[in-house]
């Protein structure tokens, strides 16, 4: 991991500068994403608290409704119940809008369901019993709970997906991208220093060669002067 750097990068000052900017951006993005993840998880827990009660409610009311239906079937016969069921008018009006939780669209349902009397349901009276009325009422009730449950569960799924995606991004930045940028920066920095040292040594060598040559020239000149 320590040697993980961006491939094929030129160790120049320009690259170093742009890399520093990229690192800054990555760190900033990482911070933001982390905040987003935490906010999402908080929202997720809030909804989890809600779902527990709702599922129990819905299942209980559905069970009651099924029991009532069974009673109606016993009293009237299976076929008569089915026949009556076919003539019931539509009772439910759901308005679905969406709300945004940290950029995730989650559904919000608005159920409009008026309390219906026996007359409104639409089946005849002569061949139906009180048990059927009871069953219909119970099913209307549980429908309301079920839609609420559906909304909350869908929200949980959507939030969970977003949390997973955000988590992956945070981890990718934290453990791969940012270390890679930093390693590359370090690599370029070291290469530049190395080049500077090389240059320095080269200059020293050149200077000492020049000085040696000058000294030799001066010595030769002095010898000539002495001869003359």
């Amino acid at each position, binding site marked *: 991991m320590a040697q993980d750097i961006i491939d094929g990068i030129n160790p120049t000052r320009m690259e170093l500068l742009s890399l520093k900017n990229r690192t800054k951006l990555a760190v900033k993005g990482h911070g933001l994403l982390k905040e987003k993840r935490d906010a999402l998880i908080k929202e997720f827990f809030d909804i989890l608290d809600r779902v527990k009660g709702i599922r129990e409610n819905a299942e209980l009311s559905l069970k009651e409704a099924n029991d009532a239906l069974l009673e109606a079937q016993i009293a009237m016969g299976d076929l008569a119940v089915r026949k009556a069921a076919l003539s019931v008018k539509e009772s439910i009006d759901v308005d679905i809008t969406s709300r945004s939780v940290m950029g995730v669209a989650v*559904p919000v349902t608005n159920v409009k369901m008026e309390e219906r009397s026996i007359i409104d349901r639409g089946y005849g009276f002569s061949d139906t019993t009180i048990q059927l009325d009871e069953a219909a009422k119970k099913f209307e009730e549980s429908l309301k709970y079920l839609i609420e449950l559906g909304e909350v569960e869908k929200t949980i799924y*959507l939030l969970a997906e977003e949390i*997973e995606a955000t988590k992956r991004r945070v981890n990718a930045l934290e453990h791969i991208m940012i270390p890679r940028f930093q390693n590359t920066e370090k690599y370029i920095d070291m290469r530049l220093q190395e080049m500077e040292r090389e240059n320095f040594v080269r200059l020293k060598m050149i200077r000492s060669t020049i000085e040696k040559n000058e000294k030799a020239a001066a010595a030769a000149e002095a010898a000539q002067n002495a001869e003359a």
Partner: protein
Amino acid sequence: MSSVAIIGDIDTVSGFRLGGVKQAEVVNTAEEAIAAFDKFLEDEISIIIITQAMANEIREHINRKIGSDVLPMIIEIPDKDGSAGGSSDQINDLIKRVIGVEMVK
């Protein structure tokens, strides 16, 4: 205004018809369930209620069609024989995966 649809066995469907759901499809096999499900998707029904027993049969089909879309909302319900525990298990799995720890429910 959006509507609600129900896919399930005859008793569940009768019950929900009594409760005022008009879009109803009685299914007994996975093929029928898939056909009913596709039909409701085409009709742009926004809430589809399906019995857990059927949902388990056609789970793959549902996941493929819905993905992470907001609509339609799929609601799984236990049928008259009671809950198979499928849906709340799914939720628990999800929570475990997302939070990283098991929540006691």
